[in-house]
C-alpha cells in the first residue's frame, strides 16, 4: 500500500468537491466515505483523513452564502465591533457531544461491574441458559433472560437480554440514562453463598443487552443458583455443563483488508444500511492506494450484488460477476422477510468458535422480540471499536436461506465485549441454523439446533 498515493487521491476528491462548492451540492459525504475506507484498510492515517475533511468543510462553509445568524461568531445586535485575531477559546464550528453511546442506545455501568473487576480468574466454559426472570427495569415491569454463564479474564458473568414486558413499547431510555437499569439484583448459589450482580452493557428500543458480573467470584462447578431483585421472590435455574460441541468447519481464506472492507459493504447493502451510490469511488480509491488488486474478484461481485438488488449508479467500474461467482451467502432474499416466530422466545447456544483474525467469538443465544431476531455474542481479542473488529456473521435456516446481520448494540471493556446482532430477515419457525463467520483469514461454519423457549 502507498499512503502517499492514498492521501493524494483523497485530497483530489476533496478538491473536486470544493470546485462544486458554488453549485448546489458539494458531496462532503463522498470525501468522508472514501477517507474512512482508506483509513480502515490502513492506507491512510486517520489524523490526515480527518484534517482533509475538516479543511474541506471549512473551505466549503466559507464559500456558502450563509444567512447572517448562521455565520460563525456572529456579532449580536448592539455589541461593539471588535478587533480581529483575539483568542476565542470556546468557539467551535462543529458542536460535539460528550455522551458515549452505542449504536442504538446508551452504555451504562453499575457498581461491581467489569470496570472494577479486572483480575486473573479461572476460565470456565460457556454454560447455556434459558431462564427468564421477572424484574423491575428502570421502574417498568421487565423480563431478564439469562443467555449464558461463563468466566473469562474479566471475571464471572451472565450474558443477559432485558426488555420491557410490554414489548410493544420501547424501553423508555430517557428515564434510564445515567442510572442503573437493573437495580439491586442478588444471587444465591447451591451452597447458600450470596453474591451481588452488576449490569454492564447497552440499551435501546430492543431492550438492554450486556452482562451481569458476579461479585465475589463463585466457585467452579455450580449446579444451580437463584436470582432475586430487592429481596423479592427468587427464580432458580440450573447451570448444567454444556453439551457436546457441534461440529465446526474452518476454511482458510486470504482476503486483503480492502476486500474484507468491500465484503462489509455487501453485508450493509443486504441489511439495508449500506451506501451504494459511492461504492465506485471507494473501489477507485483503494486501487489508487495500492490496497486493492485490479485482479481482485470482489469489486465485480459487489457490482453484481448491487445490480441484483436494483441499486443502479453504484459506480463500480468492474464488470458484474456472473451469478455462480457471487458468494452463496450474499444471495439473501430479503423479500422473504417475515416477523420473527416464536416471538418473545429465546434459543440458548453457548458455543465458542475458533479464533478468526485474532477474535474469539462465542455465540451465546438467539432471542426473538416481536420485531427482530437478535443474535447475542461475546467477543475476546478486541483491540479497537468492536464494530470494526468483528468478522461478518451470516445465518442460514433450513428453509429460507441466508440472513445477514448487523451490530445493533455493543459494550466493551479492555479486549472483551458483548454485542447484539440484528438478524435480517428475522428467523421464523426454524429449529436449526447454520452460522457462517467470515473473517479476513478464515471462514468458520457451525450448525446449531435451536430449541426456542
Amino acid at each position: 500500500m502507498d499512503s502517499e498515493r492514498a492521501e493524494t487521491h483523497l485530497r483530489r476528491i476533496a478538491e473536486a468537491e470544493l470546485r462544486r462548492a458554488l453549485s448546489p451540492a458539494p458531496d462532503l459525504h463522498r470525501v468522508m466515505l472514501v477517507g474512512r475506507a482508506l483509513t480502515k484498510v490502513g492506507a491512510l492515517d486517520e489524523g490526515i483523513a480527518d484534517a482533509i475533511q475538516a479543511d474541506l468543510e471549512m473551505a466549503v462553509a466559507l464559500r456558502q452564502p450563509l444567512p447572517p445568524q448562521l455565520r460563525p461568531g456572529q456579532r449580536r445586535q448592539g455589541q461593539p465591533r471588535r478587533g480581529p485575531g483575539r483568542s476565542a477559546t470556546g468557539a467551535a464550528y462543529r458542536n460535539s457531544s460528550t455522551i458515549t453511546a452505542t449504536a442504538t442506545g446508551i452504555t451504562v455501568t453499575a457498581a461491581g461491574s467489569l470496570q472494577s473487576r479486572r483480575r486473573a480468574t479461572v476460565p470456565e466454559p460457556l454454560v447455556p441458559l434459558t431462564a427468564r426472570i421477572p424484574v423491575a427495569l428502570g421502574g417498568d415491569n421487565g423480563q431478564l433472560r439469562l443467555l449464558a454463564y461463563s468466566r473469562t479474564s474479566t471475571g464471572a458473568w451472565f450474558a443477559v437480554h432485558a426488555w420491557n414486558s410490554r414489548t410493544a413499547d420501547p424501553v423508555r431510555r430517557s428515564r434510564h440514562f445515567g442510572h442503573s437499569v437493573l437495580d439491586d439484583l442478588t444471587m444465591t448459589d447451591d451452597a447458600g453463598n450470596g453474591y451481588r450482580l452488576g449490569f454492564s452493557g447497552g440499551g435501546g428500543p430492543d431492550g438492554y443487552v450486556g452482562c451481569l458480573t458476579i461479585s465475589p467470584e463463585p466457585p467452579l462447578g455450580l449446579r444451580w443458583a437463584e436470582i432475586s431483585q430487592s429481596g423479592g421472590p427468587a427464580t432458580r435455574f440450573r447451570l448444567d455443563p454444556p453439551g457436546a460441541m457441534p461440529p465446526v468447519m474452518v476454511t482458510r481464506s486470504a482476503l486483503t483488508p480492502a476486500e474484507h472492507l468491500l465484503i462489509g459493504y455487501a453485508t450493509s447493502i443486504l441489511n439495508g444500511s449500506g451506501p451504494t451510490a459511492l461504492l465506485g469511488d471507494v473501489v477507485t480509491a483503494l486501487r489508487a492506494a495500492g490496497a486493492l488488486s485490479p485482479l481482485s474478484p470482489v469489486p465485480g461481485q459487489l457490482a453484481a450484488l448491487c445490480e441484483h438488488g436494483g441499486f443502479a449508479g453504484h459506480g463500480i467500474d468492474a464488470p458484474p460477476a456472473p451469478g455462480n461467482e457471487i458468494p452463496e451467502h450474499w444471495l439473501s432474499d430479503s423479500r422473504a422477510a417475515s416477523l420473527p416466530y416464536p416471538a418473545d422466545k429465546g434459543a440458548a447456544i453457548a458455543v465458542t468458535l475458533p479464533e478468526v483474525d485474532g477474535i474469539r467469538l462465542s455465540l451465546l443465544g438467539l432471542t426473538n422480540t416481536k420485531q427482530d431476531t437478535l443474535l447475542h455474542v461475546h467477543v475476546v481479542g478486541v483491540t479497537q471499536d468492536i464494530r470494526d473488529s468483528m468478522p461478518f456473521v451470516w445465518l442460514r435456516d433450513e428453509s429460507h436461506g441466508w440472513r445477514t446481520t448487523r451490530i445493533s448494540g455493543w459494550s466493551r471493556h479492555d479486549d472483551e465485549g458483548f454485542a447484539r446482532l440484528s438478524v435480517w430477515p428475522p428467523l421464523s419457525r426454524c429449529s436449526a441454523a447454520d452460522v457462517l463467520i467470515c473473517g479476513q483469514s478464515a471462514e468458520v461454519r457451525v450448525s446449531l439446533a435451536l430449541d426456542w423457549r
Partner: protein
Amino acid sequence: MPCGQGTHPLRWDTGIVQLPSHPDAEAELVLAALGGEKPGCVRLAEIWARHTDDLSVLGIWPRSAEDRVTVDWDSIPEPQAAGQSGWTTLSGGAVPHSSGRQPPGRQAMQAEIERTAQRTTDVLSLLALGPGFQMRLSGHVAAAQATLSTTMPRPALETALIGRIALVAEKWIGIDPDQVKNVTLHTGEGWGSSRMSGRGEERELAFSLPASWLASVWACGLALAGRQLVVAVTRAGWPDAQVLALRAPGAEPALLDVHGTADADGSPVWEAAR
C-alpha cells in the same frame, strides 16, 4: 482593520507585513506581556507569521480571483480568557459554562477545542483581510513549501497545484477542470511539461510543474497573460516582467514581456506588453 476603538491600516510590502499605526510593535508586545492588552494589529501580525508555511492555507484559501471568500470582521468568534471552558454555538444559543478543576480527559478535550477555536479564529481573521492579502499569504505558503526537500511526500502541495492549474486551464482553453488530470510536481531541470490527449469529453490535460510555480506565477496573478499560460518567470519586476508562456498544450514555451496593473483589490492583472 479594526484595532482598539479605531481602524488601522495594514500594509504588505515585498513580503513583509507592516503596521504603520504601531511603529514600536515590540514595545507594545512587552507591555502586553506585563498585562496590558495586545493591540489587534499586533495580534494579527502574529497570526500571519504563524501561518506563512501552513499548508492548510492552500487547502482553504481561494483558488482564483473569481473564487471569492469574504469574511466580515464581525463574524470572527468572541474572545474568551484562556483556560475558560464552554461552548459557543453558531446560532448563539444557550451555552453551558463550567468552572473549577476538570478531570484529565476533559482537560485534553478542552485543549483540543481551544486549539480548534484558535485555528478558526486565525483563519477567519486572515481571510477578513481581503483578497489582496489572501493571495499574498498563499504565495508565502507556496514559497516556503517549494524550498523544502523535493524527496518529501507532498500530496497537499500537489493537490494545491492541481486545484489551481485546473481552473487556469479552464480559462485558457475552455477545458473542464475535471479533465485536467495527471498533474505532478516537476522536480528536474527546466520549467516542466504539458500534454493533451483524447478528444471532446475524453480530453485529458496533463501538467508537470515545479512547486515554485504556485509562488512565483500563480500567487502573483501571472498564470494567464493575455491568452497564454505562464509556466515560469524569467525576469521578475513590477510593473514590467518577462515570463515563459505557452500558447497551447504541448507547445514549446516562448519568452513574453508582460505589463501589470492593479485592480480595485490591489491584485495584479497582467497583459502581454505591446
